[in-house]
Protein backbone atom coordinates (compact mmCIF):
# COMPACT_ATOMS: atom_id res chain seq x y z
CA UNK A 1 0.00 0.00 0.00
CA UNK A 2 1.31 3.45 -0.92
CA UNK A 3 2.61 5.51 2.00
CA UNK A 4 1.10 8.86 0.99
CA UNK A 5 2.32 10.69 4.08
CA UNK A 6 5.90 9.84 3.15
CA UNK A 7 5.40 10.63 -0.54
CA UNK A 8 3.89 14.05 0.14
CA UNK A 9 6.67 14.91 2.57
CA UNK A 10 9.50 13.60 0.37
CA UNK A 11 8.33 14.90 -2.99
CA UNK A 12 6.25 17.88 -1.85
CA UNK A 13 9.11 20.32 -2.48
CA UNK A 14 9.50 19.06 -6.06
CA UNK A 15 5.81 19.60 -6.74
CA UNK A 16 5.88 22.98 -5.01
CA UNK A 17 8.77 24.22 -7.17
CA UNK A 18 7.08 23.11 -10.38
CA UNK A 19 3.80 24.74 -9.35
CA UNK A 20 5.42 28.00 -8.25
CA UNK A 21 7.52 28.37 -11.38
CA UNK A 22 4.46 28.31 -13.58
CA UNK A 23 1.87 29.91 -11.35
CA UNK A 24 3.87 32.44 -9.23
CA UNK A 25 0.95 33.07 -6.87
CA UNK A 26 1.29 31.05 -3.68
CA UNK A 27 -2.45 30.48 -3.34
CA UNK A 28 -2.61 29.06 -6.87
CA UNK A 29 0.48 26.98 -6.22
CA UNK A 30 -1.14 25.54 -3.08
CA UNK A 31 -4.22 24.63 -5.09
CA UNK A 32 -2.03 23.03 -7.77
CA UNK A 33 -0.08 21.18 -5.07
CA UNK A 34 -3.22 19.52 -3.72
CA UNK A 35 -4.65 18.75 -7.14
CA UNK A 36 -1.36 17.18 -8.19
CA UNK A 37 -1.33 14.73 -5.31
CA UNK A 38 -5.02 13.93 -5.72
CA UNK A 39 -4.33 13.18 -9.39
CA UNK A 40 -1.46 10.97 -8.26
CA UNK A 41 -3.82 9.02 -6.01
CA UNK A 42 -6.03 8.21 -8.98
CA UNK A 43 -3.05 7.34 -11.15
CA UNK A 44 -1.62 5.06 -8.48
CA UNK A 45 -4.98 3.31 -8.14
CA UNK A 46 -4.94 2.50 -11.86
CA UNK A 47 -1.34 1.23 -11.98
CA UNK A 48 1.58 1.26 -9.54
CA UNK A 49 3.87 4.26 -9.98
CA UNK A 50 7.57 3.42 -10.45
CA UNK A 51 9.14 6.86 -10.75
CA UNK A 52 7.46 9.23 -8.31
CA UNK A 53 9.51 12.38 -8.98
CA UNK A 54 8.94 12.15 -12.74
CA UNK A 55 5.24 11.40 -12.43
CA UNK A 56 4.67 14.12 -9.88
CA UNK A 57 6.54 16.70 -11.96
CA UNK A 58 4.46 15.72 -14.95
CA UNK A 59 1.19 15.91 -13.00
CA UNK A 60 2.16 19.21 -11.38
CA UNK A 61 3.03 20.62 -14.81
CA UNK A 62 -0.29 19.49 -16.26
CA UNK A 63 -2.32 20.86 -13.35
CA UNK A 64 -0.40 24.15 -13.35
CA UNK A 65 -0.93 24.58 -17.09
CA UNK A 66 -4.65 23.96 -16.62
CA UNK A 67 -4.71 26.70 -14.01
CA UNK A 68 -2.68 29.02 -16.24
CA UNK A 69 -5.14 28.53 -19.09
CA UNK A 70 -8.02 29.23 -16.74
CA UNK A 71 -6.25 32.27 -15.27
CA UNK A 72 -5.46 33.92 -18.58
CA UNK A 73 -8.90 33.12 -19.91
CA UNK A 74 -10.34 34.85 -16.87
CA UNK A 75 -7.89 37.74 -17.08
CA UNK A 76 -8.78 38.30 -20.71
CA UNK A 77 -12.40 38.50 -19.68
CA UNK A 78 -11.72 40.79 -16.76
CA UNK A 79 -8.96 42.80 -18.45
CA UNK A 80 -6.73 42.18 -15.46
CA UNK A 81 -3.07 41.32 -15.36
CA UNK A 82 -1.75 38.41 -13.32
CA UNK A 83 0.32 39.16 -10.24
CA UNK A 84 4.04 38.49 -10.34
CA UNK A 85 6.40 37.71 -7.54
CA UNK A 86 8.43 40.72 -6.45
CA UNK A 87 11.87 40.95 -7.98
CA UNK A 88 14.61 39.03 -6.19
CA UNK A 89 16.79 41.67 -4.45
CA UNK A 90 19.78 39.34 -4.54
CA UNK A 91 19.81 39.25 -8.34
CA UNK A 92 23.00 40.81 -9.74
CA UNK A 93 21.40 42.99 -12.37
CA UNK A 94 17.96 44.46 -11.77
CA UNK A 95 17.58 45.23 -15.48
CA UNK A 96 18.31 41.65 -16.48
CA UNK A 97 15.98 40.46 -13.80
CA UNK A 98 13.22 42.74 -15.03
CA UNK A 99 13.74 41.49 -18.59
CA UNK A 100 13.76 37.92 -17.33
CA UNK A 101 10.57 38.49 -15.38
CA UNK A 102 8.91 39.96 -18.41
CA UNK A 103 10.07 37.06 -20.56
CA UNK A 104 8.93 34.51 -18.00
CA UNK A 105 5.56 36.22 -17.80
CA UNK A 106 5.26 36.23 -21.58
CA UNK A 107 6.22 32.55 -21.71
CA UNK A 108 3.61 31.63 -19.08
CA UNK A 109 1.00 33.44 -21.12
CA UNK A 110 2.17 31.77 -24.33
CA UNK A 111 2.12 28.32 -22.68
CA UNK A 112 -1.48 28.90 -21.68
CA UNK A 113 -2.39 29.61 -25.30
CA UNK A 114 -0.77 26.73 -27.20
CA UNK A 115 -1.82 23.08 -27.46
CA UNK A 116 -1.94 21.51 -23.99
CA UNK A 117 0.24 18.49 -24.78
CA UNK A 118 2.81 20.59 -26.60
CA UNK A 119 2.97 22.95 -23.62
CA UNK A 120 3.43 20.01 -21.28
CA UNK A 121 6.32 18.55 -23.29
CA UNK A 122 8.01 21.94 -23.46
CA UNK A 123 7.76 22.44 -19.71
CA UNK A 124 9.04 18.98 -18.93
CA UNK A 125 12.02 19.19 -21.29
CA UNK A 126 12.96 22.87 -21.26
CA UNK A 127 12.02 23.83 -17.71
CA UNK A 128 12.08 20.63 -15.66
CA UNK A 129 15.11 19.17 -17.43
CA UNK A 130 13.63 15.92 -18.72
CA UNK A 131 15.22 14.30 -21.77
CA UNK A 132 12.88 13.73 -24.72
CA UNK A 133 12.81 10.03 -23.83
CA UNK A 134 11.93 10.74 -20.19
CA UNK A 135 9.19 13.13 -21.24
CA UNK A 136 7.86 10.51 -23.65
CA UNK A 137 7.66 7.92 -20.85
CA UNK A 138 5.98 10.39 -18.48
CA UNK A 139 3.38 11.29 -21.10
CA UNK A 140 2.90 7.76 -22.41
CA UNK A 141 3.91 8.60 -25.98
CA UNK A 142 6.78 7.46 -28.19
CA UNK A 143 10.06 9.34 -28.13
CA UNK A 144 9.50 10.37 -31.75
CA UNK A 145 6.09 11.75 -30.89
CA UNK A 146 7.54 13.65 -27.95
CA UNK A 147 10.16 15.11 -30.27
CA UNK A 148 7.51 16.24 -32.73
CA UNK A 149 5.44 17.77 -29.94
CA UNK A 150 8.45 19.63 -28.62
CA UNK A 151 9.35 20.93 -32.09
CA UNK A 152 5.80 22.20 -32.60
CA UNK A 153 5.73 23.70 -29.11
CA UNK A 154 8.92 25.64 -29.73
CA UNK A 155 7.61 26.93 -33.05
CA UNK A 156 4.31 28.00 -31.53
CA UNK A 157 5.98 29.64 -28.54
CA UNK A 158 8.55 31.46 -30.70
CA UNK A 159 5.71 32.86 -32.73
CA UNK A 160 4.14 34.22 -29.55
CA UNK A 161 7.45 35.60 -28.25
CA UNK A 162 8.35 37.40 -31.47
CA UNK A 163 8.14 40.75 -29.71
CA UNK A 164 11.21 39.73 -27.69
CA UNK A 165 13.30 38.66 -30.69
CA UNK A 166 16.25 41.10 -30.94
CA UNK A 167 17.21 39.96 -34.44
CA UNK A 168 13.76 40.85 -35.70
CA UNK A 169 13.95 44.22 -34.01
CA UNK A 170 17.45 44.85 -35.48
CA UNK A 171 16.28 43.91 -38.96
CA UNK A 172 13.20 46.06 -38.94
CA UNK A 173 14.85 48.95 -37.13
CA UNK A 174 18.26 49.04 -38.77
CA UNK A 175 17.69 48.08 -42.37
CA UNK A 176 14.26 49.25 -43.27
Amino acid sequence: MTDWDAIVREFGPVVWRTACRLLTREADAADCFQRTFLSAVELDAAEPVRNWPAILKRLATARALEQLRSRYRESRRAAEFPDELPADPTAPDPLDLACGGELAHALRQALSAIDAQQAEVFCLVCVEGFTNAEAAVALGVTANHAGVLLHRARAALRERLRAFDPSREHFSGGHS
Partner: protein
Amino acid sequence: MSDQNSKPTPDPLDQAAGALREAPIPAGPSPELTAATVAAIHNRLAGAVPVEQVRRERRRRIMRYASFTTAAAVILGTAGVLWFGGSSAAAFQKAIEKARRAESVGYTQRLAVEGIPEQVEIARIRGEEFRIEDGDGTRARIANLRTRKAVFLDADRKLAQFVDLPAGREAPPGLLEGLNKLAGQDGEKVGDEDVAGTRATKFKLKREEPKGGAEEWFVWIDPKTGWPVKMQSTGKVALTQENGQEKMVPYTLTLDKFEWNAKFEDKFFSLDAPAGYKSVKGIAPPVIDLPEGKK
Protein backbone atom coordinates in the same frame (compact mmCIF):
# COMPACT_ATOMS: atom_id res chain seq x y z
CA MET B 1 33.48 41.33 -38.54
CA SER B 2 32.50 43.48 -35.61
CA ASP B 3 32.38 42.17 -32.09
CA GLN B 4 28.64 42.69 -32.12
CA ASN B 5 28.23 40.58 -35.25
CA SER B 6 30.34 37.73 -33.88
CA LYS B 7 27.99 37.15 -30.94
CA PRO B 8 25.23 34.64 -31.55
CA THR B 9 21.76 36.11 -31.36
CA PRO B 10 20.17 35.05 -28.09
CA ASP B 11 17.07 32.95 -28.55
CA PRO B 12 14.24 34.67 -26.66
CA LEU B 13 12.53 31.34 -26.15
CA ASP B 14 15.58 29.83 -24.47
CA GLN B 15 15.99 33.01 -22.46
CA ALA B 16 12.36 32.82 -21.38
CA ALA B 17 12.69 29.17 -20.39
CA GLY B 18 15.81 30.07 -18.43
CA ALA B 19 13.96 32.90 -16.69
CA LEU B 20 11.22 30.45 -15.77
CA ARG B 21 13.74 27.94 -14.40
CA GLU B 22 15.42 30.63 -12.33
CA ALA B 23 12.25 32.35 -11.15
CA PRO B 24 12.34 32.94 -7.39
CA ILE B 25 10.43 30.25 -5.56
CA PRO B 26 8.76 31.09 -2.24
CA ALA B 27 9.62 28.77 0.63
CA GLY B 28 7.29 25.84 0.83
CA PRO B 29 5.24 23.82 0.92
CA SER B 30 4.13 24.90 4.36
CA PRO B 31 3.52 22.23 7.01
CA GLU B 32 -0.16 23.26 6.93
CA LEU B 33 -0.39 22.66 3.18
CA THR B 34 1.38 19.33 3.52
CA ALA B 35 -0.95 18.24 6.33
CA ALA B 36 -4.04 19.41 4.46
CA THR B 37 -2.91 17.54 1.35
CA VAL B 38 -2.32 14.32 3.27
CA ALA B 39 -5.77 14.74 4.83
CA ALA B 40 -7.31 15.32 1.40
CA ILE B 41 -5.63 12.17 0.08
CA HIS B 42 -6.97 10.09 2.96
CA ASN B 43 -10.41 11.56 2.35
CA ARG B 44 -10.13 10.54 -1.28
CA LEU B 45 -8.94 7.07 -0.35
CA ALA B 46 -11.87 6.62 2.02
CA GLY B 47 -14.09 6.05 -1.01
CA ALA B 48 -14.21 2.81 -2.94
CA VAL B 49 -14.58 4.10 -6.49
CA PRO B 50 -12.12 6.84 -7.54
CA VAL B 51 -14.34 8.33 -10.22
CA GLU B 52 -17.23 8.56 -7.81
CA GLN B 53 -14.89 10.16 -5.30
CA VAL B 54 -13.99 12.83 -7.82
CA ARG B 55 -17.66 13.49 -8.41
CA ARG B 56 -18.36 13.58 -4.69
CA GLU B 57 -15.53 16.04 -4.20
CA ARG B 58 -16.92 18.30 -6.88
CA ARG B 59 -20.37 17.99 -5.39
CA ARG B 60 -18.99 18.88 -1.98
CA ARG B 61 -17.38 21.99 -3.40
CA ILE B 62 -20.70 23.08 -4.80
CA MET B 63 -22.42 22.27 -1.54
CA ARG B 64 -19.79 24.27 0.26
CA TYR B 65 -20.70 27.16 -1.98
CA ALA B 66 -24.38 26.47 -1.54
CA SER B 67 -23.98 26.22 2.19
CA PHE B 68 -21.77 29.14 3.04
CA THR B 69 -22.79 31.62 0.39
CA THR B 70 -26.32 30.67 -0.41
CA ALA B 71 -27.40 30.24 3.19
CA ALA B 72 -27.63 33.97 3.60
CA ALA B 73 -29.17 34.30 0.17
CA VAL B 74 -31.81 31.85 1.35
CA ILE B 75 -32.75 34.26 4.08
CA LEU B 76 -32.56 37.15 1.66
CA GLY B 77 -34.65 35.34 -0.91
CA THR B 78 -37.14 34.53 1.79
CA ALA B 79 -37.25 38.12 2.82
CA GLY B 80 -38.05 39.10 -0.72
CA VAL B 81 -41.15 37.00 -1.06
CA LEU B 82 -42.76 36.51 2.34
CA TRP B 83 -46.44 37.14 2.13
CA PHE B 84 -48.70 38.40 4.85
CA GLY B 85 -51.72 39.47 2.87
CA GLY B 86 -52.57 42.95 1.67
CA SER B 87 -50.73 44.50 -1.28
CA SER B 88 -47.57 42.91 -2.63
CA ALA B 89 -45.48 45.94 -1.73
CA ALA B 90 -46.77 46.05 1.86
CA ALA B 91 -46.29 42.30 2.26
CA PHE B 92 -42.80 42.56 0.94
CA GLN B 93 -41.81 45.27 3.40
CA LYS B 94 -43.30 43.25 6.25
CA ALA B 95 -41.38 40.25 5.05
CA ILE B 96 -38.13 42.17 5.10
CA GLU B 97 -38.73 43.34 8.62
CA LYS B 98 -39.63 39.86 9.79
CA ALA B 99 -36.56 38.37 8.15
CA ARG B 100 -34.43 41.04 9.79
CA ARG B 101 -35.75 39.93 13.16
CA ALA B 102 -35.14 36.23 12.51
CA GLU B 103 -32.44 35.10 14.89
CA SER B 104 -31.87 31.63 13.53
CA VAL B 105 -33.02 29.12 10.97
CA GLY B 106 -32.57 25.42 10.34
CA TYR B 107 -33.47 23.57 7.16
CA THR B 108 -32.68 20.64 4.91
CA GLN B 109 -31.28 21.30 1.48
CA ARG B 110 -31.03 19.04 -1.52
CA LEU B 111 -28.77 19.97 -4.41
CA ALA B 112 -29.19 18.37 -7.81
CA VAL B 113 -26.55 19.27 -10.38
CA GLU B 114 -26.67 17.94 -13.91
CA GLY B 115 -24.53 14.81 -14.15
CA ILE B 116 -24.04 14.46 -10.40
CA PRO B 117 -26.18 12.50 -7.92
CA GLU B 118 -28.31 14.56 -5.56
CA GLN B 119 -26.80 15.42 -2.19
CA VAL B 120 -28.66 16.20 0.99
CA GLU B 121 -27.38 18.47 3.77
CA ILE B 122 -28.81 19.78 7.00
CA ALA B 123 -28.10 23.43 7.77
CA ARG B 124 -28.36 25.42 10.96
CA ILE B 125 -27.69 29.16 10.97
CA ARG B 126 -27.62 31.38 14.03
CA GLY B 127 -26.48 34.90 13.28
CA GLU B 128 -23.01 34.53 11.83
CA GLU B 129 -22.62 30.95 13.00
CA PHE B 130 -23.19 28.11 10.54
CA ARG B 131 -23.32 24.36 10.85
CA ILE B 132 -23.77 22.33 7.68
CA GLU B 133 -23.92 18.54 7.98
CA ASP B 134 -24.04 15.85 5.34
CA GLY B 135 -27.38 14.07 5.32
CA ASP B 136 -25.76 10.87 6.58
CA GLY B 137 -24.01 12.69 9.42
CA THR B 138 -20.51 11.69 8.37
CA ARG B 139 -19.23 15.20 7.83
CA ALA B 140 -19.93 18.62 9.25
CA ARG B 141 -18.65 22.09 8.49
CA ILE B 142 -18.96 24.61 11.28
CA ALA B 143 -18.02 28.24 10.79
CA ASN B 144 -18.13 31.52 12.59
CA LEU B 145 -18.08 34.28 9.99
CA ARG B 146 -17.42 36.97 12.59
CA THR B 147 -14.20 35.38 13.82
CA ARG B 148 -13.59 33.77 10.40
CA LYS B 149 -12.76 30.48 12.07
CA ALA B 150 -14.10 27.14 10.90
CA VAL B 151 -13.70 23.46 11.56
CA PHE B 152 -14.41 20.56 9.21
CA LEU B 153 -15.36 17.34 11.03
CA ASP B 154 -14.97 13.90 9.49
CA ALA B 155 -16.77 11.34 11.68
CA ASP B 156 -15.46 8.34 9.73
CA ARG B 157 -11.84 9.26 10.35
CA LYS B 158 -12.38 11.11 13.62
CA LEU B 159 -10.60 14.09 12.13
CA ALA B 160 -11.14 17.79 12.90
CA GLN B 161 -9.54 20.13 10.35
CA PHE B 162 -9.29 23.72 11.59
CA VAL B 163 -9.16 26.52 9.08
CA ASP B 164 -9.07 30.30 8.95
CA LEU B 165 -11.56 31.60 6.42
CA PRO B 166 -9.86 34.09 4.11
CA ALA B 167 -11.51 37.49 3.87
CA GLY B 168 -13.83 37.82 0.94
CA ARG B 169 -14.20 34.10 0.33
CA GLU B 170 -17.13 31.96 1.39
CA ALA B 171 -18.66 34.91 3.17
CA PRO B 172 -22.33 35.56 2.57
CA PRO B 173 -23.27 39.12 1.87
CA GLY B 174 -24.36 41.13 4.88
CA LEU B 175 -27.97 40.45 5.63
CA LEU B 176 -28.86 44.10 5.93
CA GLU B 177 -27.11 45.01 2.70
CA GLY B 178 -28.85 42.16 0.90
CA LEU B 179 -32.24 43.11 2.25
CA ASN B 180 -31.72 46.65 1.06
CA LYS B 181 -30.85 45.31 -2.39
CA LEU B 182 -34.05 43.32 -2.51
CA ALA B 183 -36.26 46.24 -1.50
CA GLY B 184 -38.70 47.02 -4.28
CA GLN B 185 -38.87 43.48 -5.71
CA ASP B 186 -42.11 41.56 -5.57
CA GLY B 187 -42.80 37.86 -5.58
CA GLU B 188 -45.39 36.75 -8.08
CA LYS B 189 -48.11 34.52 -6.64
CA VAL B 190 -48.46 31.44 -8.84
CA GLY B 191 -50.89 29.20 -6.87
CA ASP B 192 -51.47 27.07 -3.77
CA GLU B 193 -49.88 23.67 -3.06
CA ASP B 194 -49.64 21.17 -0.23
CA VAL B 195 -46.18 20.94 1.30
CA ALA B 196 -45.76 18.27 4.00
CA GLY B 197 -49.36 18.63 5.10
CA THR B 198 -49.44 22.42 4.96
CA ARG B 199 -51.52 24.24 2.39
CA ALA B 200 -48.97 26.79 1.17
CA THR B 201 -49.04 29.71 -1.21
CA LYS B 202 -46.45 29.45 -3.95
CA PHE B 203 -44.53 32.49 -5.19
CA LYS B 204 -42.04 33.02 -7.96
CA LEU B 205 -39.13 35.48 -7.99
CA LYS B 206 -36.36 35.98 -10.49
CA ARG B 207 -33.04 37.32 -9.20
CA GLU B 208 -30.60 38.72 -11.72
CA GLU B 209 -26.97 37.84 -11.13
CA PRO B 210 -24.47 40.74 -11.03
CA LYS B 211 -22.45 39.41 -14.00
CA GLY B 212 -25.29 38.05 -16.09
CA GLY B 213 -27.53 35.03 -15.77
CA ALA B 214 -30.38 34.67 -13.34
CA GLU B 215 -31.65 32.55 -10.49
CA GLU B 216 -35.30 31.66 -10.40
CA TRP B 217 -36.81 31.09 -6.97
CA PHE B 218 -40.05 29.40 -5.99
CA VAL B 219 -41.13 29.86 -2.41
CA TRP B 220 -44.01 28.15 -0.63
CA ILE B 221 -45.38 30.21 2.28
CA ASP B 222 -47.63 29.06 5.10
CA PRO B 223 -50.24 31.84 5.08
CA LYS B 224 -51.07 31.19 8.73
CA THR B 225 -47.55 31.84 10.04
CA GLY B 226 -45.99 33.89 7.25
CA TRP B 227 -42.92 31.66 7.21
CA PRO B 228 -41.77 29.67 4.16
CA VAL B 229 -42.17 25.90 4.27
CA LYS B 230 -40.24 25.18 1.11
CA MET B 231 -37.95 27.05 -1.28
CA GLN B 232 -36.46 26.03 -4.57
CA SER B 233 -33.99 27.80 -6.83
CA THR B 234 -32.71 26.96 -10.27
CA GLY B 235 -29.79 28.46 -12.12
CA LYS B 236 -26.31 27.58 -13.32
CA VAL B 237 -23.17 26.87 -11.34
CA ALA B 238 -19.51 26.55 -12.38
CA LEU B 239 -18.46 22.92 -12.26
CA THR B 240 -14.85 21.88 -12.72
CA GLN B 241 -14.69 19.06 -15.23
CA GLU B 242 -12.23 16.16 -15.08
CA ASN B 243 -10.00 18.00 -17.57
CA GLY B 244 -9.76 20.92 -15.14
CA GLN B 245 -11.91 23.22 -17.26
CA GLU B 246 -14.94 24.92 -15.80
CA LYS B 247 -18.39 24.49 -17.28
CA MET B 248 -21.62 26.17 -16.29
CA VAL B 249 -24.23 23.49 -15.61
CA PRO B 250 -27.84 23.73 -14.41
CA TYR B 251 -28.69 23.04 -10.80
CA THR B 252 -31.78 22.83 -8.60
CA LEU B 253 -31.48 23.65 -4.92
CA THR B 254 -34.45 22.68 -2.77
CA LEU B 255 -34.82 23.73 0.86
CA ASP B 256 -37.52 22.53 3.22
CA LYS B 257 -38.14 21.33 6.80
CA PHE B 258 -37.58 24.88 7.98
CA GLU B 259 -37.31 25.72 11.67
CA TRP B 260 -37.49 29.49 11.99
CA ASN B 261 -36.14 31.10 15.16
CA ALA B 262 -35.15 27.66 16.43
CA LYS B 263 -33.39 27.54 19.79
CA PHE B 264 -30.26 25.67 18.77
CA GLU B 265 -27.97 24.31 21.45
CA ASP B 266 -24.55 25.97 21.58
CA LYS B 267 -22.88 22.62 20.92
CA PHE B 268 -24.02 22.75 17.30
CA PHE B 269 -21.75 25.75 16.67
CA SER B 270 -18.81 24.72 18.83
CA LEU B 271 -15.48 25.09 17.07
CA ASP B 272 -13.80 22.63 19.44
CA ALA B 273 -12.79 19.18 18.24
CA PRO B 274 -15.16 16.51 19.56
CA ALA B 275 -13.72 14.04 22.05
CA GLY B 276 -11.63 11.40 20.36
CA TYR B 277 -11.01 13.47 17.23
CA LYS B 278 -7.54 14.21 15.92
CA SER B 279 -6.99 17.93 15.30
CA VAL B 280 -5.29 19.11 12.11
CA LYS B 281 -4.58 22.67 11.05
CA GLY B 282 -5.50 23.12 7.41
CA ILE B 283 -5.90 25.71 4.73
CA ALA B 284 -9.24 26.94 3.54
CA PRO B 285 -10.65 26.27 1.19
CA PRO B 286 -8.23 23.75 -0.40
CA VAL B 287 -10.16 23.82 -3.65
CA ILE B 288 -13.39 25.63 -4.24
CA ASP B 289 -15.40 26.59 -7.26
CA LEU B 290 -17.55 29.64 -7.03
CA PRO B 291 -19.95 30.64 -9.77
CA GLU B 292 -19.36 33.76 -11.81
CA GLY B 293 -19.98 36.85 -9.79
CA LYS B 294 -19.44 35.12 -6.46
CA LYS B 295 -15.63 35.20 -6.38
